[in-house]
């Protein structure tokens, strides 16, 4: 270890390591990106307009990130094929955050200060969007999240928007659906306590359902990753609810459905957009049949817009787009629409244009941005029939 050769090797390795590690820190503020939509950008520059995207391309929620990315990518390509915005092409710069809030914060900082993006798209999950939003707000760069449903995200500042409905609305939708369409009064809740989204949905469902004269007969919880739900289901069974509200993700929901049927619970399950995956029917099998969930769009919808989108998406990626892809697609198009309407590519002008979005015909419904920068749009309720998700009804806000 202490021979001169080994020592030299050690030292050079150390020095090399130091340099490598410090290299990003060493260089400081080198160029103010000319592309950062300054007021004159529109008239002077001819380069592409840079759009930043932060997504969980790797990590435990990689499928969410990829689905959304594909939707955004398709939208950008279509917009470019149609001549771009203000005669300029859009350039998408996608960065991975591994599903970690702190990485999302670094990535969004890089997009804004290094790449000089005009606007940000992302993130899928609220936890990452919440870490990103204050940064986008500080730098006054408009940010549109495709699918972060936590109400707090857009409360971070007036540059933060979303094109999805928020947790209260989805909870409300299912409560309304239970009261008005299913005409039931006794519902049990089984929520995923580890998941902000699930907790939010359950709270708002309970609130609306009770207001409408319904009764929550039991409120049980589980944790994402659990595989045995029998104890919760057994205690739910004693109350004989007419339906069970399970606003979790498809993996656990499939298992919960199976175990509920094994215990002889006949009541249908209800849930939110976390159910939206072909895997649900795969895991749940026959047990999940006859259950309902709210979603952003239905691929069954026969309107030409949706069918064209589905056709194009299939052509590009070989799969039927899920809700997240549709929302990514819409987020990118709402942004492009706003940039087209904006008098200049000044961030403030783009922000104002996004805020003024009204009845934008997205594939996930007519999108109007309200004063809290949330999208107001209808939700659809789907029923699981076989391995298909059949459109039931549309619930207006």
């Amino acid at each position, binding site marked *: 270890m202490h021979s001169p050769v080994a020592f030299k090797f050690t030292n050079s390795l150390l020095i090399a390591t130091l340099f490598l590690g410090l290299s990003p820190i060493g260089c400081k*503020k080198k160029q103010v990106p000319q592309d950062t939509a300054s007021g004159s950008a529109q008239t002077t520059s001819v380069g592409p307009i840079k759009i930043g995207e932060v997504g969980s*391309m790797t990590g435990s929620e990689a499928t969410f990130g990829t689905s959304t990315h594909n939707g955004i990518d398709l939208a950008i390509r279509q917009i470019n094929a149609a001549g771009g915005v203000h005669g300029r092409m859009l350039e998408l710069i996608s960065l991975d955050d591994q599903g970690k*809030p702190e990485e999302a914060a670094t990535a969004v900082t890089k997009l804004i200060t*290094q790449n000089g993006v005009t606007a940000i798209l992302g993130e899928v999950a*609220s*936890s990452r969007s*919440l870490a990103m939003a204050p940064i986008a707000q500080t730098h006054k760069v408009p940010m549109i999240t495709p699918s972060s449903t936590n109400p707090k995200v857009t409360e971070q500042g007036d540059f933060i928007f979303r094109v999805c409905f928020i947790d209260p609305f989805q909870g409300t939708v299912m409560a309304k659906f239970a009261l008005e369409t299913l005409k039931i009064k006794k519902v049990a809740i089984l929520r995923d306590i580890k998941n*902000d989204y699930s907790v939010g949905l359950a709270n708002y469902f309970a609130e609306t359902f009770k207001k409408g004269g319904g009764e929550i007969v039991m409120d049980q919880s589980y944790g994402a990753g659990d595989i045995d739900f029998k104890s919760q289901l057994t205690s739910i069974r004693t109350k004989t609810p007419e339906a069970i509200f399970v606003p979790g993700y498809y993996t656990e929901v499939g298992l919960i459905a199976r175990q509920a049927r094994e215990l002889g619970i006949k009541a249908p399950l209800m849930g939110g957009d976390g159910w939206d995956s072909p895997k649900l029917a795969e895991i749940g099998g026959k047990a999940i049949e006859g259950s309902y969930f709210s979603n952003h769009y239905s691929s069954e919808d026969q309107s030409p817009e949706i069918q064209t989108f589905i056709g194009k998406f299939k052509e590009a990626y070989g799969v039927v787009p899920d809700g997240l892809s549709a929302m990514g697609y819409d987020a990118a198009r709402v942004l492009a629409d706003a940039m087209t309407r904006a008098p200049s590519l000044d961030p403030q002008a783009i922000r104002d244009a996004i805020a003024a979005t009204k009845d934008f015909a997205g594939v996930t419904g007519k999108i109007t941005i309200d004063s809290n920068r949330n999208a107001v749009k209808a939700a659809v309720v789907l029923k699981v029939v076989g391995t298909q998700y059949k459109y039931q009804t549309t619930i207006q806000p």
Partner: protein
Amino acid sequence: MTQKNEPLKNLSTHREPRSGLRTLWVWLASLALVWALDFWVTDQLDAYFFTILMYAGINITLAVSLNLVNGFTGQFSMGHAGFMSVGGYVAAYLSTRYQAETPLAFVTALVSGGLAAAGAGYIVGLPSLRLKGDYLAIVTLGFGEIIRVVLLNIDAVGGARGMTNIPPLTTFGWVYSVVVVTVFSAWRLVNSSHGRALLSVREDEIAAEAMGVNITRAKLRAFVIAAFFAGIAGGLFGHYLRYLNPATFDFNRSFEIIIMVVLGGMGSITGSVVAALFLSGIREALRPLQEITKIDFRMVIYSLMLIILMLTRPNGLFGTRELSEFLPAWLRDRLDPKASRKST
């Protein structure tokens, strides 16, 4: 293997240790430098590099403090992210609850976070530090997960939704002052008689006990001090990101810190500092690769580099050596009593 025996040599060469206070000026000068740089860095440095620099500083604090347990005392703790989250949440809760944004309030919040983490370290450490090796690793891993699940269920700090609107109080000056204080404390501890007790525990518990070292107490001391600094790092992290989510502090986070310690060298403070800087920087340095190729193999390369480094340098970059051992003799003599003893 010669490296492993070095501390033992230290133990046997009995000499009066020189007063560490002689070098106090170096540390005070570093603190002054940090605050002098604070203005320049905040004002001039690009926000992106600034972010990397901040995370790097927080990681240095985490790695150096974990090294006290994993490196110097030879106990394998996997719950550092847990202590970090305790400190982070306590500090963030205090400063959001009382809306206090003065430097004094911030220090109070940070120290409270650190003390809470130290308390948690004491509670976990007292029973579990009687365990050895793998068992301790599992207990600490379990502790980290328990903390996370508890946080998920506390509504006052946002539960699974996370904690938002934490005031942005963390500045360059604070992060790097904590780095200086952490490195100084670790260095003084390791070179004190308590520190040598820690080293003796790592080398041979039975021998240490025979020499009159209360091994559980020695371990607990290292554990509590490490937890304290992890808690402070957590507080800095929360006030920088302005958002805390229990999912951030899962065992992967603990592993990241362990990787820094192992990569730098178990038992080298310099190593932990360098490795933390390196690993914080390299992830971002690899980003352009993703932009060019459009494929994300950033993490593949990251992992590959770790494998290669561990294969070529199984003891970590520095082994158990410190920076001062690379310095010329006259300077070394002034700075580091440990190294000068070694050279004689």
